[in-house]
């Protein structure tokens, strides 16, 4: 009987196996001991800085600068371009997509390898003084709840529309460090608790580097609305 009733209800009208609790994260920036005035010092600091610093200047900076549509992907790339005047290195660093990494250690190695390779082919660039010092910072993070809970796709859409950009960043971008998966909290819930695999995949494919976080929110809303209209994936 239960199976018959479930079958008659569109997938998007079902109640989720588990509720989605919208949280958010608040970050307090700490100033660390590492700083760099040249690319050689920068490479040394990349090796020594705490993992929190790599997180701050890659994942977290996307939240601080969420409103910029183009030309900004992480603090390292911005510094290489604007203060070291090394556009090739800037482009290579900005090409690092944080969503391809589920561990900060791997992300750090990627940045180190780009800068090392650049300095091997451009040894004179290592000692050139940058226009501005790069100060390595880090974040202390506190996760806080919000009022929003979703048991259905409709409630999920409402939550996405209503939560802050910080919450979107927390669930959509930072999440993979927690999940250790190439996914995000929204897609995980859509797939595992709503059974909407294609919708989950569509959300996971949203490009975070060509739009703002507000654009990301709007794209998720559109995907959810489309699923609601179609009654399923």
């Amino acid at each position: 009987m239960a199976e018959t009733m479930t079958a008659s209800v569109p997938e998007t009208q079902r109640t989720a196996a588990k509720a989605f609790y919208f949280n958010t994260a608040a970050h307090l920036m700490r100033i660390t001991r590492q700083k760099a005035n040249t690319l050689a010092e920068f490479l040394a600091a990349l090796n020594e800085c705490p993992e929190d610093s790599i997180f701050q200047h890659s994942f977290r900076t996307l939240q601080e600068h969420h409103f910029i549509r183009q030309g900004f992907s992480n603090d390292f790339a911005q510094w290489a371009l604007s203060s070291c005047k090394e556009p090739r290195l800037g482009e290579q660093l900005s090409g690092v997509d944080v969503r391809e990494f589920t561990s900060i250690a791997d992300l750090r190695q990627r940045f180190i390898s780009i800068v090392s390779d650049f300095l091997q082919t451009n040894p004179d660039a290592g000692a050139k003084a940058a226009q501005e010092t790069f100060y390595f910072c880090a974040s202390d993070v506190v996760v806080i709840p919000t009022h929003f809970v979703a048991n259905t796709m409709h409630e999920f859409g409402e939550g996405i529309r209503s939560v802050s950009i910080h919450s979107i960043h927390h669930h959509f971008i930072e999440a993979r460090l927690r999940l250790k998966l190439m996914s995000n909290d929204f897609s995980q819930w859509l797939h595992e608790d709503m059974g909407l695999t294609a919708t989950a995949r569509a959300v996971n494919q949203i490009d975070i580097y060509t739009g703002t976080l507000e654009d990301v929110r709007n794209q998720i809303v559109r995907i959810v609305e489309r699923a609601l209209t179609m009654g399923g994936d």
Partner: protein
Amino acid sequence: MATAKEMVNAPFQEPAVKPESVAAAPLPIARPERRKTPRTWETPPAPVPPAPLDHYRSIVGDADIEELRFLARDVAGKTVKMVNSTAVGGGVAEILNRLIPLLGELEVKTHWDVITGGNDFFEVTKAFHNALHGAPYELTREAQEVFLMHNEQNRQRMEFNEDVVVIHDPQPAALIRSKSDKNRWVWRCHIDLSNPNPQVWGFLRPFVEQFDAAIFSSQSFARQLPIPQYLFYPCIDPLSEKNKDLDETFVQKVCDEFGVDRKRPIVTQVSRFDRLKDPVGVVQAFKMAKKYVDCQLVLAGGGASDDPEGAIVLKEVREVAGDDPDIIILDLPPWCALEINALQRASTLIIQKSIKEGFGLTVTEALWKGKPTIAGAVGGIPNQVIDKLTGALVHSVEGCAYQIRYLLTHPDFADQLGRNGHEHVKENFLMTTNIRRWLLLFRILLHGSGKA
């Protein structure tokens, strides 16, 4: 506006015939008649009381305010003491006047104490302040004794029973001797310590190292210390007179009074007449740019009436400006916040061509108003102006002149910078973000951080 009174201010220079070589517009320009004495007040108006937290909803959104309330739950009922050296005047007092009621609304009861001291104490602390900014200074045993004696007197007079004690700037730093296991102490340093006098810093450092944490306004101001150092950017209050939205008729009225023609591009720098703000360089850059683009320059500042050096700088600016009728120089008293706000809102571009700068809150104000901003790459300005993304950074008069020309002739790009700048301030440099940082710090000091 009803209390406005006439006050003689900057002498008005009658417009002279503009030399052919600097005339960019081919047709004669009809200029509004400029008042000979800009309208100001004789005495400062009463301060406007700070707005309650819910008034910020329309600016940052419901979700951000709700997040503050959630964040405050963990520290509700805790008590905080803020200690500084002055109750009125100065940036710290201004910040505390707005911060403390908002923390109170979030049930973090915050008490504000001001240390007392004689002229000898404040002479020493003024000298310390300048020395920490890098000025030469010979630290004497007598100065150390004066500093310690007044700190000790204040320490005996005050009680420190709160959960968190926040000491602002160096003047009360030696109160740390009252630190116990029962509470956490934070040193909030508002000044630039990037190049301190070694004697003074060497004297203060042992006190600073006893705190549980220190807070600086910029990464570059921090020192190597054995305690955690946090970054709290200075902030602006979007509901203050300096930054709130203004009625268009008021903006027009202010421009009319000051002889600013809103039909033509307006380039503005708001700053004290201080060499470190390079007002002469701004006039030079404007004159270079005006050969190619029609525009007016407004230099709105103060400091000439109460600061002898300010008067000299103002005279230099007037000399460089010469008889150009498109250069409008306004020496305003510090309580003309609404007029400054109106001038910023009327501007096409805003410049802050500082040679040395603390954080540069006039830049924050300009960005908040969505204005394309050209600024010197010094102090805390690069934290706000990300070159080509939230504004334009410059290093010279020539660079400034080029950016004026470029942004006036590429309005779409200029608008994009303005929009990004506004969002940057909304995310990072508003009073509500500052409240969030304080709540987080209290939470971390009292309960530790809960990592994602």
